[in-house]
């Protein structure tokens, strides 16, 4: 098989070929490393490529006996890229921040342990907005990642690196972290699948904390089934994470396979009334509405559902998130790891000043903005009005979802109001950047699972994302209709959405 043939397979197909001994894990890794080398100059998805380690892991997997391999999850042998927000033992982990430059963790995140145990080689660490704070990956301290669909445009964020890597065939799978849409929105902007599991469904141990009550690790992939397979590998209870749900992963793979039969009779789908209208590009709404029609054609009953407190979610999010950020990022103080900057000579050379100058130099503007905002929201005298109020709004939003899910099985809406925008287009106005998260934030506030799948291309030729949301701890409920919609759309398109993607970096790659 040629490199292009290999890397354009889905992860499930790669796994099947590994199982059939048509391809080895090493060959999969080599093919992807070749694509990475070719694509990176224009895409810049990776902060660090861990090729040697990946090959070692692949060889270790290939050397296993058939009996040993049979014990492993379906994705065994298939490589994966990791957002650099997730801690990897022995591989530099920076959260795309100068303050962590050069930090080599002495431990693995729980999800990394699970991937290693599953025999899945780690290709490297992908770019993100610094500490996952941003919606375009422009806030990385190291590099700007380009959208494979149009390299003049952002891949979304914060997990732009993982999404771009998967879209550009540099990796069949990637892990992301989603605090307010950081997996789903880049998925939407790059024509890939991105899933934020139920809060607590995947261990956060080893995910560098941004906003602990909102953060969740999840899969990035090119197909719904691949995401389901990956979520079953990384999901389940972890005693190292107190917020981890004490249950195993849901039957998501079965649900996705069921969905591929494209029978949605009896499924109740709710259109979120509050998502749409002003700020939503017409091309986005058009693709979304076509998707809804497809669901109906497959037998789903579609009704409009109101979540009346949703308009308050952006405000609540921009209190809770920076508050937790301000505390979570306190530890970057120049004492134990990462950057240390001593004050200028005319300033007393004290520990306190060292911390202040380290943090001034080590954090970017967006991170500082959120730390200051969060420090304010938590401070005495303002706590009740801000943090306290936001927590109450959270209760109301959770209740809205509960009531909605009494009426419907899944909720749907556009993943992002806009398609990929140009570099610098929104960096000057923080509120404009924040506002595009309005569609993805509610799931994080409510802890419900949500996923984005490609809904087609907008008039501008750029991908649009279709979002499904399911009740807490019922992640499988969204996989079925998502897989059904994917199958129905691909039939219309005569193949996956990436057929329309120009991939000059794949031209002329090895046989």
């Amino acid at each position, binding site marked *: 098989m040629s490199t292009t043939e290999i890397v354009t397979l889905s992860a499930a197909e790669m796994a099947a070929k590994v199982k059939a001994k048509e391809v080895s894990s090493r060959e999969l890794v080599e093919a992807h490393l070749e694509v990475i080398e070719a694509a990176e100059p224009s895409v810049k998805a990776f902060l660090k490529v861990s090729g040697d380690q990946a090959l070692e892991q692949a060889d270790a997997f290939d050397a296993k006996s058939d009996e040993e391999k049979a014990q492993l999850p379906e994705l065994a042998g298939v490589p994966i890229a990791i957002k650099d927000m997730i801690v990897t033992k022995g591989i530099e982990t920076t959260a795309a921040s100068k303050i962590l430059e050069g930090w080599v963790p002495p431990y693995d995140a729980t999800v990394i342990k699970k991937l290693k145990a599953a025999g899945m080689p780690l290709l490297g660490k992908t770019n993100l907005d610094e500490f996952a704070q941003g919606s375009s990956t422009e806030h990385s301290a190291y590099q700007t990642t380009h959208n494979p669909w149009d390299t003049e445009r952002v891949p979304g964020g914060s997990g732009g690196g993982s999404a771009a890597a998967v879209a550009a065939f540099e990796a069949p799978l990637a892990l992301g972290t989603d605090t307010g849409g950081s997996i789903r929105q880049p998925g939407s902007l790059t024509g890939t699948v991105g899933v934020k599991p139920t809060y607590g469904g995947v261990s956060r141990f080893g995910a560098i904390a941004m906003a602990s009550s909102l953060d969740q690790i999840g899969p990035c992939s090119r197909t719904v089934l691949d995401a389901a397979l990956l979520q079953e590998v990384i999901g389940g209870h972890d*005693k190292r994470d107190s917020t981890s749900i004490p249950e195993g992963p849901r039957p998501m793979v079965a649900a996705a396979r069921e969905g591929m039969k494209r029978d949605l009779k009896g499924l109740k789908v709710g259109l979120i009334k509050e998502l749409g209208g002003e700020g939503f590009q017409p091309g986005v709404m058009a693709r979304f509405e076509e998707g809804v029609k497809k669901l109906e054609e497959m037998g789903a009953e579609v009704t409009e559902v109101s979540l009346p407190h949703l308009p*308050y979610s952006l405000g609540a999010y921009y209190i809770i998130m920076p508050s937790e950020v301000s505390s979570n990022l306190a530890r970057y103080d120049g004492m134990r*790891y990462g950057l240390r900057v001593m004050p200028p000579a005319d300033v007393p050379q*004290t520990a306190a000043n*060292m911390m202040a100058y380290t943090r001034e130099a080590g954090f970017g*503007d967006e991170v500082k903005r959120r730390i*200051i905002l969060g*420090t304010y929201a938590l401070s005495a005298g303002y706590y009740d009005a801000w943090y306290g*109020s936001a927590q109450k709004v959270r209760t109301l939003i959770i209740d809205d979802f509960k009531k909605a899910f009494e009426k419907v099985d899944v909720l749907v809406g556009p993943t992002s109001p806009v398609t990929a925008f140009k570099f610098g287009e929104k960096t000057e106005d923080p509120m404009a950047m924040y506002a595009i998260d309005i569609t993805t934030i509610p799931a994080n506030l409510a802890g419900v699972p949500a996923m984005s799948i490609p809904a087609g291309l907008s008039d501008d030729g750029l991908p649009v994302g279709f979002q499904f949301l399911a009740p807490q701890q019922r992640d499988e409920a969204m996989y079925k209709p998502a897989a059904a919609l994917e199958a129905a759309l691909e039939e219309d398109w005569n193949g996956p959405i990436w057929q329309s993607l120009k991939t000059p970096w794949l031209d002329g790659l090895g046989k």
Partner: protein
Amino acid sequence: MPTFTKEEIVHLGDLARIALTDEEITRLQGDLNVIAESINKVQEIATDDVPPTANPIPLEAYLRPDVPETPLTQEEAIAGAPVSEAGMFVAPRILGEE
């Protein structure tokens, strides 16, 4: 509605231990006032009868058995230290502020 004064930003910078530059302080003042205005409306619906939610999934604490596990080695622990001495992390002069 809160409005951020320059002094407040300076104070917040102190609390957050960030040596903000004057230019940053001015910019943050503008940014935060815009952000504050838009998020201030959460208070409209946060009435007394609504309980707060700290954690979206209602879990109770898992209690870990009191059994030791192998710790990091000293070498691993201090490997990332910007400055270390005799197996310890070095802090510049600490004022007796606590």
